[in-house]
């Protein structure tokens, strides 16, 4: 049976995709190649993994304020995550998603969940996100 949780919507949209759960926070700028969606941060445990077309789950975003541009550029290149699920709100990613929508009509839903609910996601889980912030896992 799928688990259903609910989150606060920072950027609206719907998605159905596989989850990728990051063990450590990632700065998209310097940490993600927007052309491919691959994690390139050398110290990151999931270096080499792709977030393109997947539901990116991480406790928090980290680092540079250029991450909004990287998210919009990844959307332009068709390599953005299908959705982003966070444990803490992040306006840099929220605005990056808003610009992706304004410029390219690409919706990247961003949700903030209770930290306890983040623990329910496993890499590879099938995740469905609805417009109202409901998330079904598995």
């Amino acid at each position, binding site marked *: 049976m799928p688990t259903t949780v609910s989150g606060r919507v920072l950027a609206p949209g719907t998605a159905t995709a596989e989850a990728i759960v990051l063990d450590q*926070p990632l700065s998209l700028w310097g940490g993600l190649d*927007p052309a491919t969606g691959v994690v390139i941060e*050398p110290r990151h445990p999931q270096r080499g993994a792709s977030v393109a077309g997947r539901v990116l789950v991480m406790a*928090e*975003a980290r680092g540079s*304020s250029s991450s909004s541009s990287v998210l919009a*550029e990844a959307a332009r290149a068709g390599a953005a995550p299908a959705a982003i699920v966070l444990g803490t709100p992040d306006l840099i990613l929220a*605005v990056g998603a808003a*610009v992706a929508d*304004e410029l390219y009509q690409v919706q990247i839903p961003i949700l903030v969940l209770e930290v306890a609910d983040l623990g329910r996601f496993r890499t590879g889980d099938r995740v469905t996100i609805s417009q109202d912030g409901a998330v079904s896992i598995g």
Partner: protein
Amino acid sequence: MTLALDEHERSMLAGDRGEGAALAARLVVRAAEALDAERLIPITRAHVDSCLYHGEATIDFVRRLVDGGARVAVPTTLNVGTLDLLHPELWHGSREVAERGKVLMDAYRSLGCRPTFTCAPYQLADARPAFGEQVAWAESNAIAFCNAVIGARTERYGDFTDIACAVLGRVPDAGLHRDDARRATVALRIGSDVPERLRSSDALYPPLGIVLGRRAGSRVVAITGLPPHQPEDRLKSVAAAAASSGAVAMFHVVGSTPEAPTLEAALGGYEPEELDVIGLRELRQARDALTSAEVAVPGTPIGAVSLGTPHASLTELREIATLLHRDRAAEGVELLVSTGRDVLAQAEADGTAGRLRNAGAELLVDTCSYLGPVLRPTPLPTMTESAKWAWYAPANIGAQVIFGSREECVRSAIDGRVWRDPAVWGEA
């Protein structure tokens, strides 16, 4: 919570001032909703990071603003761009990226932004906010410096939001704009095993910033146990490092930063949720982790030295010139110092720039040497005194980094090989 807008904001949103202003207003509203703000508040200044090229999306965005007739509503400085517009010969990358980078930098000027092209706007006397001023600053090191060291107030703004706030002249009334979010909830004391000499040396501060970022995440930390009245350049290196290894936008150094005359003041009268010590071992580990080159022992040949990330202040440029004294960078070693064009003008006027060039240094402005191909290709490691450079350069430009103090970097540039002063860290 719902966001209440005043007449001016509603009229911008409705497109009364053009489609560019309406786009800016929509993005500020989105930011306000993400921050759960109830209203927007006016700002006096902005610092915009969106002028750095990250692909065509960055140009597509600014074109919308320019074509929509947008102009900044407050004095606005610009962060680094892709290119050194004053010394274009230092660019070794593709002509196409250089051209796109310049298009973007020019587009932001045409919105009314001042072409400062520096990541250290706090070094510009006429652009620096006063204590308590509400501003919209982007660029992670500048955000942390603005809040912690100046005591002016900005949230952690990023690309697009920065220029949107500058055009609207408003920010969400949330986060670090308000008193609550600025007080420390964590107190970290420098351990008694950290030698007195290290506490008084510039060498401590970049690794301390890395530890601060790791320990803090996005919480506000107060650091105690450092000599009072720390120079701004040291606090700059703490801010830059902490904003690289963590999401630090505010911190206190008790006795040095304006909202922390005492630990009690930094904590705002509350008990800290965490009280801990930063010991010598953790600091040494943070320092060592900044070196990515496989071999970094004294005597290891180096190919380049990159100083000035964030942009070197006039004081730092003078220190580097003094350390070089009558020596020169060794044959085959590129010594590159990054600074802002306005600080460079001051260094030209007082002779510092001439002394640096005579010693073989190249002076880079408007950009940073870890953003693109500026350093000449070398199979040998590059040495830096900047934790932020060490953090980002391996992924960005493929550099093998050896981290050292400013003095170690300059002496190594002269020798062409790694030179160490182990006494500073109590390792002699």
